């Protein structure tokens, strides 16, 4: 696989745009999770706001490589806002399924691809699964999201 397939435009672009960057104020049913990648020391804080059964908002802060930053951005967009900024209403149950599918694909060493209909821009992260050392980078925000959700 070439480097360009790993670092697709979409990824480099999200790494710069950083959708959802900046933690929203704590209000309503909010929960956060802080995760670290012990190899590089990168950290992320992800905050979710839920409203009954529905995930309303995902925001985050942290520094890291372009894969981890893009992944957080894509997650925030996918879960909380569609590309036109319209707010989504993802049920909690579906959010967990989403994380599980994402994990499965990323751990598959390239054998399971992320579906574009299900994952939107995040589908561009499929290529990461062939780089086993980078899977943690792409997973970091999703693990934080899952953890925050479990506590919200």
């Amino acid at each position, binding site marked *: 696989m070439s480097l360009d397939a790993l670092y697709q435009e979409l990824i480099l672009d999200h790494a710069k745009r950083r959708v959802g960057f900046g933690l929203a104020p704590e209000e309503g049913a909010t929960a956060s999770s802080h995760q*670290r990648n*012990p*190899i590089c*020391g990168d950290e992320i804080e992800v905050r979710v706001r839920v409203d009954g059964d529905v995930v309303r908002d995902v925001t985050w802060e942290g520094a890291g490589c372009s894969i981890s930053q893009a992944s957080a951005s894509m997650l925030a967009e996918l879960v909380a806002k569609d590309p036109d900024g319209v707010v989504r209403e993802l049920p909690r149950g579906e959010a967990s399924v989403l994380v599980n599918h994402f994990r499965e694909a990323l751990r598959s060493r390239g054998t399971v691809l992320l579906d574009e209909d299900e994952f939107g821009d995040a589908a561009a992260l499929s290529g990461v699964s062939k*780089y*086993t*050392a*980078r899977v943690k980078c792409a997973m970091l925000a999703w693990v934080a999201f899952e953890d925050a959700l479990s506590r919200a």
Partner: protein
Amino acid sequence: MSSTTLDATALKADFPLLASHDGLVYLDSAATSQKPQAVIDAEVGFLTSANAAVHRGAHTLAAEATVLFEEARETVAGFVRAAPEQLVWTSGATAGLNLVAYSLGNASLGRGAPASARFALRPGDELVVTETEHHANLIPWQELAARTGAVLRHIPVRDDGTLDLDGAAEIIGARTRVVAFPHVSNVLGIVNPVAALVALARDAGALTVLDACQSAPHVPLDLPALDVDLAVFSGHKMLGPYAIGGLYGRGDVLEALPPFLTGGSMITTVTLDEAEYLPPPQRFEAGTQPVSQAIGLAAAVRYLDGIGMDAVHAHETALEQRMRAGLREIPGIRLLGDADGAERVALCAFEVDGVHAHDAGQFLDARGIAVRVGHHCAQPLHRRFGMTASVRASAALYNSASDVDAFLDAVSGIRSFFGVAR
């Protein structure tokens, strides 16, 4: 034996040292085993094609090496029916037992997470081992007792080599915090009653630590089913490389134990003044790990599983019976712990009346038979049986009935050579 038979003479061809030493009867596998070509190839293959630092690099080689290393963990964990995260790499059984003893010592000094407090030892607490221990499962507990004020107690062994379970039931009680014992003693060869000892320990709320060094290469092992809290084994005794071993632990136990060795790759955040630790197994794996050795050990257990541990056990049981029956017939031989009908591995330790063990071993060596002589790192056990040293013959899957016969034939000549046979 039926479908589980194996052809030891054919197997020898897989072991380059045995194949190239014509006439060598190697009966010292309890000390260290020989290695099949598959183990050597796996390690050399790794070193010449994928060698790189694991869990650290992002480059292709490092990522490949990490995958191979973690696959090895899965394979070796699977061999003892454990989950990968229940297997900690160590440099051997001795290191694994010291890890446990020092980790408990650290808990006693208030180190570790709040959950570690349940392992803290106080003066008067009791640690229990058996009279049959290898020094590796004895001295670390002596030292832990000395450091914490705990008291070390010993389950007696009967004249026939079986553990005195009545004695155990009296010794293990409310003060008992740890019960550590060998699955199979390296001098007696008897498979100890794990379930009975674990039941006593559980009733007392004590932690159980199993020394599985001498069972792992010889009997099918299911550590979770044995229900011990912790267990150790050594790679070099089970066809694998030197300098690697495993520590198995139940999830909740490993989770609560404080770290032992500290350094790189076992932390999340480190400041100049303190460190936060990763969950198990990494918490216990400080520094560069025995990477090629893990891959070699995985090849060793794949080799054993390829033959089938049931077949290995059946074959070795037959060898054991032949050896014991033969030794019982030779005048002037005194077997240590010669219980009838005990479940055993293929290992016999004995004295030759009137001939020092060293001389007997030398005589056997001159006939191409490699056995071990001495106290086999079990001085208290020898003292218990009224001796300082013995001769020990220990077989493995690559030994054949004719190896045993050659051994018996040679043993029967010892006393006349040294002029003590009448």
